């Protein structure tokens, strides 16, 4: 590299034919900064292209099974039991939600969220079997379940959620894992190999190698500044570069094709 630099300086001195290399120092700094962050530039380009090329629908979990909403119970004796069970706790939120084969009244108090069966008002416990049924009902091909496990700590796949969570692994070609909330039985995430691949590139892209979440940390801001400087100086140098010869070669090649 040093040799090349020396040579271009010599050339400049010998530029009798009107060849003057402009912005030598800028070229030199541009090259050195490029050497330092060039690898990250490559990583950004490759990971960005990979994320753009991976089909977004698949990354988001792919096709989902059509689930008919369970019928709304005809009798209305759930509500008195629900507010008896709440024992005077103040309600902040309430909604009716569909679970496979039944409707649930989901009530939020200062103590947390609790689902009750909308037919008989009994509290619903989301155990492994219920979680498995919820995940299976959402799976488009009804593939066999390999295993159901309760998470002890948040994994990368469910980093935006809170425990308790059930992980339901399917034996399908996408290696799907569905995650079901242990409190309300909501299907939280549907992860597959496309997502795992995408998330790996996302980690490379945002340079948050541990959490994969933040893209506002000092490291990426610093390298981002260097990259911005590099691209601006590079663009500037495009206009400080001799193109005459390159265009002449091109013109010659077009006139006499097939020559190397």
């Amino acid at each position, binding site marked *: 590299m040093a040799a*090349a630099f020396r*040579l*271009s300086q*010599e*050339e400049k001195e*010998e530029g009798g*034919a009107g*060849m003057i*290399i402009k912005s030598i120092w800028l070229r030199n700094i541009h090259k050195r900064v490029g050497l330092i962050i060039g690898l990250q530039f490559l990583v*950004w380009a490759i990971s*960005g292209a990979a994320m753009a090329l991976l089909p977004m629908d698949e990354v988001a979990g792919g096709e989902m099974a059509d689930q008919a*909403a369970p019928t*709304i*119970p005809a009798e*209305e004796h*759930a*509500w008195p039991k*629900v*507010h008896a069970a*709440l024992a*005077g*706790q*103040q*309600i*902040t*939120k*309430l*909604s*009716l939600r569909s679970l496979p084969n039944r409707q649930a*009244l989901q*009530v939020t108090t*200062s103590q947390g969220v609790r689902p009750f069966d*909308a037919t008989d008002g009994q509290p619903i416990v989301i155990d492994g079997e219920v979680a498995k049924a919820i995940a299976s009902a959402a799976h488009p091909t009804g593939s066999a379940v390999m295993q159901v496990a309760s998470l002890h700590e948040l994994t990368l796949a469910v980093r935006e959620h809170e425990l308790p969570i059930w992980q339901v692994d399917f034996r399908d070609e996408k290696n799907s894992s569905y995650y079901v909330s242990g409190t309300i039985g909501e299907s939280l995430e549907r992860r597959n190999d496309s997502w795992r691949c995408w998330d790996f590139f996302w980690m490379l892209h945002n340079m948050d190698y541990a959490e994969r979440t933040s*893209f*506002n940390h000092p490291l*990426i*801001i610093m390298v*981002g*500044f260097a*990259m*911005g400087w*590099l*691209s*601006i100086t*590079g*663009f500037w*140098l*495009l206009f400080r*570069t*001799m193109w005459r*010869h*390159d265009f*002449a070669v091109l013109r010659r090649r077009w006139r006499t094709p097939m020559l190397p």
Partner: protein
Amino acid sequence: VAHASPWAAPVSSDPARSFRAANASHISARKTHKWLGLFIGLQVVIWSLSGLYMTVVHIDTIHGDHLIRALPPNTVDAAKLADPLTVLKANNGQSVRLAWVRNRPAYVVKGDAGETVVDARNYRSVPPPAKAEIRSIAKTTYTGSERSSTIGTSRRSTSRRPPASWSLAAMSCGASSTSSGCCTSWTTSGRM
């Protein structure tokens, strides 16, 4: 001279031929770099500067979190509430949820005909908020001191979610619907 370029191997000082051979890949790399720069240089500048902007300006600032005041949650005693399933069936809906209109509990029933809002204590229908109420809700939730200049309905959603109805947007505007930066607008999208 016509074949010499600033980046080509030296012609005059003629070091060993082997040096030139070793330099051949070096030269083609330089050429590739130069031509790539010509064709995608501008896009690389745009990518790197837009990326830099997204890293420097924190995502919470973009979301406008600092513009929303966190209000204490409304609460209600279950004994005071009507049976949500009764309300649901009376309004021929498919789903029901509790919301807060004018700080009072209300059931929002979603059905084929859209959303119906019913007082959660006495089954009475709740009229959609008027412009003045929207303004006061916005004022309590907005942390800034600037006055809102315009209130309007828009058919297009500024967030990339499907447009909500006027009443829904008005009730949920405490939780969403801010845009950051110099322009702060309260959006209530949908049919008026």
